């Protein structure tokens, strides 16, 4: 192998390490610095061919009735694939949706989470926030799935609009993986 090719191979390897470290760091930063938020959820259907077994999490804030929250002028034109910014407010121990913005608003609201519109039906939108999957060791996802209705909560970390799942709570106790 020539010197140039050796150098380029070294560069390619450094690039790969950088990619992996970058993915890990950007996500770890959210977990380390994010504000803890508790969300109510209903877990459904596991499995992913590349990454293994997981629980699919459907939050209360995943479905938003636009007529029941504050919206900006762009809300009428919201379509599938659009980015929205959802302000949350504490309601008891959980956080719920308070406002839906199509552009980042200047005013300060509650904790703000960025999401992507997956569907729209008249005044209701379905939003995903990148926190809809929780991976578990093989054979353990079913434990969360079989938990009674309303017994599963998720604590996320929210930082600069991005959220990551920190832990899943079953009957108020952390699900240990």
């Amino acid at each position, binding site marked *: *192998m020539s010197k140039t*090719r*050796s150098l*380029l*191979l*070294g560069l*390619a*390897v450094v*690039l*790969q*390490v950088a*990619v*992996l*470290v970058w*993915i*890990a760091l950007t*996500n*770890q930063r959210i*977990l380390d610095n994010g504000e803890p938020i508790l969300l109510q959820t209903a877990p459904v259907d596991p499995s992913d061919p*590349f*990454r*293994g077994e*997981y629980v699919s999490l459907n939050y209360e804030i995943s479905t938003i009735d636009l007529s029941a929250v504050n919206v900006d002028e762009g809300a009428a034109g919201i379509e599938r694939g659009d980015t929205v910014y959802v302000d949350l407010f504490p309601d008891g121990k959980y956080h719920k949706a308070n406002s839906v913005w199509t552009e980042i608003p200047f005013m300060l609201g509650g904790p703000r989470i960025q999401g*992507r519109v997956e569907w729209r039906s008249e005044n209701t939108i379905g939003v*995903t926030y*990148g*926190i*809809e*999957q*929780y*991976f578990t*060791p093989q054979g353990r996802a079913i434990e969360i799935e079989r938990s009674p209705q309303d017994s599963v909560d998720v604590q996320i970390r929210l930082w600069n609009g991005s959220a*990551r*799942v920190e832990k899943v709570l079953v009957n108020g106790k952390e699900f240990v*993986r």
Partner: protein
Amino acid sequence: MSEKNSWLRQESQSWVTDGLISAEQRDQIVERYPAETESGTGSLVPKLLMGFAAGLVGIGLLLFVASNWAQMSNVVKVVLLNVVMLAAYAGSWQAYRRGRESSGAAFALLGSLTFGAAIFLIGQMYHLVAFNANALLTWAAVTLFVAYLTRSRLVFVAALSELLAYDLVNTWEYHNSGWIFLVVMLLAVPFLRGLQGRRQWVLTAYMVILTVGVIDLLARYEAAIIGVPAYALLLYFIGLLVRRRSEAEGIWLQLVGVRVSTLFVLADLVSQGELTDTISTRVVPGDLVATGVFAGLYVLTWGLQLKWKRPHGELLDGLYFVPVVLTAWYGGGGLPLLEGLLLAVAALFWILQGGAMNGERYRLNNGSVLFGLAVFGLYVAVASELLQGAAGFLVGGIVLFAVAFLLERNRRRAMKGGDGS
């Protein structure tokens, strides 16, 4: 070596007994091939033990990591993944430096596979939800670059497979267009040229994956009915141009075009027109564009063949694409494919005749396979309409047997007097 030595000792003793050589000569011969010594046997045992020990340590480490994976902190997991990847690449570099190409390629492949696995494992660690197939694209692009640097066919095919996975997930799960896939595939062309040695199977893998991606893209724009024959004709046309530089590579590319269109028609037949029906049941702008491209290429192909005074047999090749288009249109309109297949069989027969006239190996061999396939397709179409039960199998078997016999005889005759190109 030791087995040869003991064989020599026994055999040479019988040579002395038979009087072929003297005892002194026998000793001299045996001395030339030393018997297994204590040191020789001794050096093998530690090697085996070391290999066994390395295997045990490896399995132990793997089991340790697997059983403690969930308990490890994210930082430890990321470091561990990087260490494994770096070790694989370091092994590859060392192997290449020592001239061990196969080991180098194997380690490079391990490194790139570890990189892909690490992306998905880190995604799992942070419970990331994917909104696109960019992780697969990043993995494939990196593997492609490693393939280029190592000139490894093995790593190159791995990169192609990852690209195919990206294209399928990107198109069918995330409903995005496949243009990026095509761009990366085009970027891979210089890498193909850099590969040395026997690369026919690598080229074939490349063309198969490229074709899947192209059909995916055409289906997305509802332009597959004429789009696929147009793509096949484009390959045929490029092959015509390549033949000016390399006759064998050009003919190979032309026949890939013929194969693509034949398989498309046969797949449509097997699915009873479902393929073209599902892709599009109406004429859409994409089809019209593809028809324009097809017509333009068709005129250009014939024009260049005439200008370059290609032999009569080769000119007939172009006719093959007419029935392919007709068949595709019939399929799209939900009409029987029988007429199109009849024309396809006739056109493929012309290709065979062209090959026989010029004694060309590629055209004859491939033409025989395609002609056989088309006849089989025609038989399926006819039998399903006219012949039921045992009669269908019996007649079909006899017809196919006769066709196979005639094709082989024709091929052998032609090859005897051909140029073997």
